[in-house]
């Protein structure tokens, strides 16, 4: 009979190996899925994982990986801080929307005036928008002990309605022939978050994501607050004795994740997306939760996971176009990846032993 024994310490080797095993298992089972759908499995896997990185047109896809991955990493880094401390902000999608709305509104308030300080003000606006939205579950939790998972999730739907309102009313492009959506910030120089080097995909959001990774790494490994975060997650009682103020930690963690999600929204709306529209949000806030877990809540892991997720999106679209795979198959493929990763996490924390039966 197979038995599980909890390891005294999570296995370091397995913690590094499981993501690789999970990716391999996903390739294997994904291949079976693609074969069932009548597609060449090897070709499909190759298209998804190889084509964007080293294929004929990789000069175009590599920058796209940055564009697609940056918001995921930025949001996931913020979430991981809270997750480590056992604070579950799953409403990053809403904070992302609010950051975009506030940031875009700041920029559009200046239109058509050009000045160097407009973009920095938008960045501050975006961060504040996301932060404020995350402060609602934070304050309610601190003050009333409400469940932050549910409050932050509810606020996603509220934010989506506000987004519709912004596109149809208060941020609607007055020269847009009555169609919903704001002005395009890409054609408003002071507000445009352009590539820093043209065609590189490196916009300010990518820079911010990289800074966030470094910042989180230092915070978690070298700073008292990082220690408190980890301690609270692993041993809440011990944390209390160590003098951690749980309320302060909740406000800080939710606030940081909200601000980062808001920044991601701002960089997206002022750069790649260009405008506020009804369908502006495409689920980055939820995908980032997956990225955070995929990266084992470790800053470097999240960076890699964000890249991997972006790869499956871009490769998935190529596979759709070139091989005629339905987008649902790609979705299942991504679900599998997460599934295997979560399932194999077992090996990190538990030792699997074969032993003669004993009533458990």
């Amino acid at each position, binding site marked *: 009979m197979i038995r599980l024994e909890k390891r005294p310490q999570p296995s370091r080797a397995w913690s590094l190996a499981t993501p690789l095993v999970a990716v391999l298992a996903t390739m294997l089972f994904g291949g079976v899925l693609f074969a069932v759908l009548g597609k060449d499995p090897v070709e499909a896997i190759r298209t998804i994982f190889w084509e964007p990185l080293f294929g004929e047109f990789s000069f175009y896809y590599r920058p796209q990986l940055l564009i697609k991955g940056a918001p995921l990493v930025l949001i996931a880094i913020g979430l991981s801080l809270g997750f480590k401390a056992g604070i*579950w902000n*799953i409403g990053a999608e809403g904070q992302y929307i609010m950051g975009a709305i506030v940031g875009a509104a700041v920029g559009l308030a200046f239109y058509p005036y050009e000045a160097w300080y407009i973009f920095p003000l938008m960045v501050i606006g975006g961060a504040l928008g996301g932060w404020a939205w995350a402060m609602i579950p934070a304050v309610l939790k601190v003050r009333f002990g409400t469940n932050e*998972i549910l409050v932050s999730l509810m606020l996603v739907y509220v934010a989506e309605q506000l987004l519709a309102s912004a596109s149809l009313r208060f941020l609607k492009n007055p020269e847009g022939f009555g169609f919903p959506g704001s002005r395009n910030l890409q054609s408003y120089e002071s507000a445009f978050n352009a590539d820093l080097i043209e065609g590189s995909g490196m916009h300010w959001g990518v820079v911010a994501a990289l800074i966030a990774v470094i910042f989180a790494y230092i915070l978690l490994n070298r700073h008292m607050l990082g220690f408190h975060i980890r301690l609270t997650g692993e041993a809440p009682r011990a944390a209390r004795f160590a003098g951690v103020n749980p309320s302060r930690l909740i406000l800080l963690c939710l606030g940081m994740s909200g601000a980062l999600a808001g920044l991601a929204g701002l960089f997206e709306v002022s750069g790649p997306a260009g405008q506020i529209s009804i369908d502006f949000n495409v689920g980055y806030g939820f995908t980032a939760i997956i990225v955070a877990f995929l990266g084992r809540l470790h800053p470097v892991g999240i960076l890699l996971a964000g890249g991997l997720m972006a790869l499956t999106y871009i490769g998935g679209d190529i596979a759709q176009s070139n091989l005629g795979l339905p987008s649902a198959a790609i*979705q299942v493929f991504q*679900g599998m990846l997460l*599934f295997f990763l979560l*399932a194999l*996490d077992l090996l990190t924390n538990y030792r699997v032993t074969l032993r003669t039966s004993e009533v458990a």
Partner: protein
Amino acid sequence: MDLSAINPVLLIASLMVAATPILLAAIGELVVEKSGVLNLGVEGMMIIGAVSGFAIAVETSSPWLGFIASAAAGAVFSLLFVLLTQVAQANQVASGLALTLSGLGLSALLGQNYVGIRPPQMGKLDIPLLSDLPVVGPILFGHDPILYIGIALTAGVWAMLKFTRAGLVLRAVGENHDAAHALGYKVIRIRILAIMFGGACAGLGGAYISLIRVPQWTEGMTAGVGWIALALVVFASWKPWRALLGAYLFGGVTVVQLNLQAAGVAIPVEYLAMSPYVITIVVLVILSADKSSAPAALGRNFHASR
């Protein structure tokens, strides 16, 4: 503006129909959460139920078989969550999201051949005399059978939690799994059963949308109902009858706002559309005074170490 155009009797009757899928999914999730497990995969299980129920109903021309299949499919699909959280001890939040993601994709694949087909109809309850009564008739006796099953399930779960030993054990597991384990209860086994029950209920709720409420199959047709069901469980503070009330309130907000629009009342639609979520948050705050309502072990995994 013509408020007299709104017929309160019909409004209540259609509100009950609008509430049923939310109620079914929420009752299932309520049992899951009472056992101390948070399954965020309700949306995924619902849409799997929606597509399986639809497919089987079309193939067999029997809506009843469709509903049975949807419950079975929801329960089987929830086994993925069982595997992750109860066997592999994975994080419940992430596992639930994985379930929803896979469910949406898988259902789209399964349903490819069922787009644009009309499913067999399930007849309405038609009791002579009773169904024809004014006011009471349309509200109480004029619906499809599944709607009554939803109410019966609510009553059943309420009675089970309150009066039976099984309910007591379930609550004990949800409150403190270590203590329950020490008392000799099989924590994991009880949770697995609860999760499967939740999956079956969510599947039924999904099929209610694809077979009765809409009825058709299209990708992503549950359109977020699963998430509303999650909110509803909290709104109801884990009490079945409050879940029923809440489902009517949630379903009612949509129906009432559409009614007001049709009657020509100028209302800001987005603000009404967001009201259920805002109300839930307010209720959460009010309920927070009552610390006893949430299962204490909610979201925490259990491993019997020895």
